[in-house]
């Protein structure tokens, strides 16, 4: 099945997006915990697209495209903020240093990379796209 969602860039929309994702990946043959983690990974990328990619400007939209079968998942999240994927490298910072530096952020991409099999960033049609994939064993 293929599911697509366009949502305004406001943080309040995140909970609806999660509900939408939860239902869209329902056919995946994964445990509830695995599905919850996948919802989390997608939530993190959407939050980044809304907050960093579009500065929570709710006249802007993010686009979520989900392609799911019983055993595989591909999700593309697009936002109009054109950023350099190289700058997302913050995810390698040590967790103990994040605590020491009293950071509130910088943990989202760590989760995304841990939960998904593959994470790719690229630019197409003037949109920044984050493409997530996972194949169930």
């Amino acid at each position, binding site marked *: 099945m293929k599911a697509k969602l366009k949502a305004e860039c406001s943080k309040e929309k995140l909970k609806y997006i999660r509900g939408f994702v939860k239902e869209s990946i329902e056919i995946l043959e994964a445990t509830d*915990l695995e599905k919850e983690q996948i919802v989390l990974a997608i939530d993190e990328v959407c939050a980044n697209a809304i907050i960093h990619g579009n500065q929570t400007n709710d006249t802007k939209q993010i686009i979520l495209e989900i392609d799911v079968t019983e055993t595989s998942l591909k999700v593309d999240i697009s936002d109009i903020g054109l950023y350099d994927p190289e700058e997302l490298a913050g995810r390698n910072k040590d967790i103990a240093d994040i605590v020491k530096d009293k950071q509130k952020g910088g943990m989202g991409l760590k989760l995304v990379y841990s939960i998904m099999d593959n994470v790719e960033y690229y630019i197409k049609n003037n949109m920044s796209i984050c493409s997530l994939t996972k194949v169930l064993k």
Partner: protein
Amino acid sequence: MEIFKQKQGDSLLISVEGELDASSSIDMDKAIEATINEGIYKLLINCEKLSYISSAGVGVFVSYVEDIKNKNGKIVFYKMQANVLSVLQILGLDKILSIAETEEEAKLILNEG
């Protein structure tokens, strides 16, 4: 998300219900900041009804760990649901934060050494 606060001697019990995400974490941040501004550095976080947490929610707690430690305080979580615990485990925070199973255990940890 809803936050319930209850003062217990020199510590504060915060019960958090619902989903703690990039949107609702702002309220949690205010709640903890207010507590610290009142001079309370011993925090018990009841997670029994916390059904979801994203990195923004985690970040709120993480950002106060150092300040609280410097004041000889502590922040102890308890009754975490499996999905919430798994988020902290993926980040390796289960070894850095204090996480108890029951309220009793949490209080012991809060008041020890």
